[in-house]
């Protein structure tokens, strides 16, 4: 009863897709951000699976760095969202359209 390693990859792909659709469908900026985190996690999962495939730890190191950067990114991103909220009293992504035309 074995689990071919490809199943992990399929799972990661599915998670990635779900996160992607979430970014496009949800309007709450914070929830969009969370979906982006989900996408990052799916990539991490893929990296770890490939690390196991290739038999060295490079994938895991890469995944480690992705996590660090994700943490930094979340910090700054949430600060920005707070700033935006201060201006518009809303975190609806559709309210931020000053780039229109």
């Amino acid at each position: 009863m074995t689990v071919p390693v490809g199943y992990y990859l399929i799972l990661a792909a599915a998670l990635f897709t779900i996160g992607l659709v979430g970014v496009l469908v949800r309007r709450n900026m914070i929830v969009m951000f969370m979906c982006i985190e989900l996408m990052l996690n799916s990539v991490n999962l893929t990296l770890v699976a490939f690390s196991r495939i290739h038999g060295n730890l490079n994938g895991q190191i890469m995944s480690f760095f992705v996590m660090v950067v994700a943490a930094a990114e979340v910090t700054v991103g949430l600060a920005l969202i707070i700033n935006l909220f201060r201006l518009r009293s809303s975190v609806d992504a559709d309210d931020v359209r000053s780039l229109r035309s």
Partner: protein
Amino acid sequence: MAEFVVFWIMAPLALGSALSMLFMRNAVHAALMLVLNFFAIAVLYAVLEAQFLATIQIVVYAGAIMVLFLFVLMLLGVHRDEAPGGKLRRQGPFAVFFGVVLFVVLAITVAQPFLSSEDACPDQVAAGTESTEPGSCVGLAGANREGNVRGIGLRLFTDYVWPFEVTSVLLVIAAVGAMVIGRKKENAEDLVDQLPSTDPSPEPEPDPEPEPESLAVAGEPDLEGTTES
């Protein structure tokens, strides 16, 4: 065997929590679903012989990042139900369609070579063997000889020390940046965006919730003092 069981419990859990995160109207509920997802992934990391990463996942992702998210959600008070649709209602189905297309593409290109039963990785129990199976998974038995933490540490501080140092600088920058962006704005030129038309409140000051500055950076050690500028 154990891997089989664990996988088939955790995988649906991860998928299910992700999907419900997608569909939950309440933002806090969605965040909690995401936490659950992260836990499932952490278990999967453990199964994939990435024990260190599993721990880090729980500590950093579920423990810090999601807490940060929840704090912001609660403090901004935007967890209320989100009205469905909005101005880009029509984008939804197309997004799903393209997403599915992307999934299929990824599955075909990335996952396809590794789906046959020979591609199962050798069990952790059979230690010390880097067997070349007819399949393509090598397994981390060799790399994890002295334990996963030790292995990662060796690689991290020899081959990858330079990126390691850079990411530490990155973290500092992120912290400083967050403080700068999040501080209370008293001068007009501090404002990032000046459009009065879409701004429901006549002026950005006084800040409706004076608390968030000090707590917005709660995720990082509180380098206090710069809330008043």
